[in-house]
């Protein structure tokens, strides 16, 4: 376990060392590539700065709000489409049309419709993050063993109770995988929304640093949002392993 972790860390440390060495070698100007240690130190400072933390909180709020909505709606729609004949007929073509649409193209429309604050960004996170969850819920709910459903119905469960107590738990392992994919997408999208239409948040920090050519500060928001994504992903993986130990 520990040996595996060490072996995994080796290429990452090597990359960081190469970055540090290259940046300090004088072959490239510091303004173009600041050393890794400088970026890490600046990130630590930023995290203790009130204004940076305020932006981090803004981004985090939007991210979690959009992701929460995507989880609730995605699971509901995915299972509904799997259980319901009409729903199933609409589901496939809808995914085929809207899946490959780069949702960021809708962002200007959201800005016009929902204002320039939190709502359009949450909406963008929602429509980007909902797809993996909805697809996972749909596929998993369709694969639930029919015998389980029949037994539950025979035992006197109402159709609604059957969905909540049989289909949802059985579909949960795959749904959790969908949620993990969605969480990383949500991090990316919320950041992009703040870069495309800056105002506040981590993406805005990035744009402001870029406009002022403060190169170290350009790396900091990227490091923070990536760490946030990795942290969210690891947390969800742990939850999945703990709560769904039976599914293995």
């Amino acid at each position, binding site marked *: 376990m520990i040996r595996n972790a060490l072996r995994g860390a080796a290429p990452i440390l090597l990359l960081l060392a190469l970055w540090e060495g290259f940046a300090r070698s004088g072959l490239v100007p510091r303004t173009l590539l600041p050393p890794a240690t400088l970026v890490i130190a600046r990130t630590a400072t930023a995290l203790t700065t009130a204004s940076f933390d305020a932006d981090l909180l803004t981004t985090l709020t939007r991210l979690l709000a959009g992701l929460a909505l995507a989880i609730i709606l995605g699971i509901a729609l995915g299972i509904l489409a799997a259980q319901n004949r009409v729903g199933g007929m609409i589901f496939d073509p809808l995914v085929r049309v809207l899946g490959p649409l780069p949702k960021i193209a809708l962002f200007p429309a959201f800005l016009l419709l929902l204002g320039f604050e939190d709502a359009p960004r949450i909406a963008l996170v929602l429509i980007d993050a909902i797809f993996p969850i909805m697809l996972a819920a749909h596929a998993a709910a369709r694969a639930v063993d029919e015998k389980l459903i029949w037994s539950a119905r025979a035992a006197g469960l109402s159709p609604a109770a059957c969905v909540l107590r049989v289909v949802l738990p059985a579909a949960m392992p795959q749904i959790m995988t969908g949620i993990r994919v969605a969480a990383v997408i949500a991090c990316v999208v919320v*950041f992009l929304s703040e870069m495309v239409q800056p105002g506040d948040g981590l993406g805005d920090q990035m744009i402001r640093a870029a406009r002022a050519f403060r*190169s170290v500060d350009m790396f900091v928001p990227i490091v923070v949002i990536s760490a946030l994504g990795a942290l969210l992903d690891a947390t969800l993986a742990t939850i999945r392993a703990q709560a769904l130990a039976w599914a293995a």
Partner: protein
Amino acid sequence: MTRLGPVLVLLALLAIWQLGAMALQADYLPTPIAVLPDLRAMLIDGDIWRDMAASLTRLAAGFAIGLAAGVPLGIVCGRSTAVRGCVNPLLALFYPVPKAALIPILMLWFGAGDLSKILIITLTVTLPIVYHAQQGAAAVEEKLLWSARAMGFSPAAILWRVVLPAALPELLLGVRVGIVIGLIVMISSEMIVRQNGLGYDIFNAMDMAQYTLTYAVIVIVGVLGYVLDSGFEALRRRLTFWAPQRQAMVAASS
């Protein structure tokens, strides 16, 4: 039914849009019927084609580099545990990084021109290509490899003539994911660095309060996404008709 489905869904979406816009009565949400003249004018007078060509050229260039780098790397990763052990931690490290958000840093290095935007697309699409090529190459039946070796194939010939074709179905799944996220990055990079291209067109129209034009470009981007994705799906089916078909998850991080 499967042919008609997307058309019906599209009509239903347009109907919802039409009714919503009629109910709202606001100039920032024109009805699709009001957007139609702008759409027609744009497609005829040709400005949009120039921007679409600019966007698609960058997408194609970024993709070509991504394929050239990602396919060999992924295939080798799939067959060699040493290379895999070296590459996979880096893949895991870069997975949660918002690649499209790196565009200001790439601009710092390579200038504000096409090169930065092409490289950002390359960076994005390479990841799923490497990942899926690796999955495919790792799952090649050992018997095929033994037979090839017994027939005197060199290791390179085995990779090229046995592993690559066997990994193709899985690899093409990665390419499809790459197309979807490549489009996202193409549009977002043009929205962040506004020079030309479809992403620029959308925001430019919005900034000038030409709302019907904004929506017309959004419609064009939507159609482009659908055409590229289903075009590639058709190609993929023809190339891998011999393999059991699997549904790709049409979602991935950018």
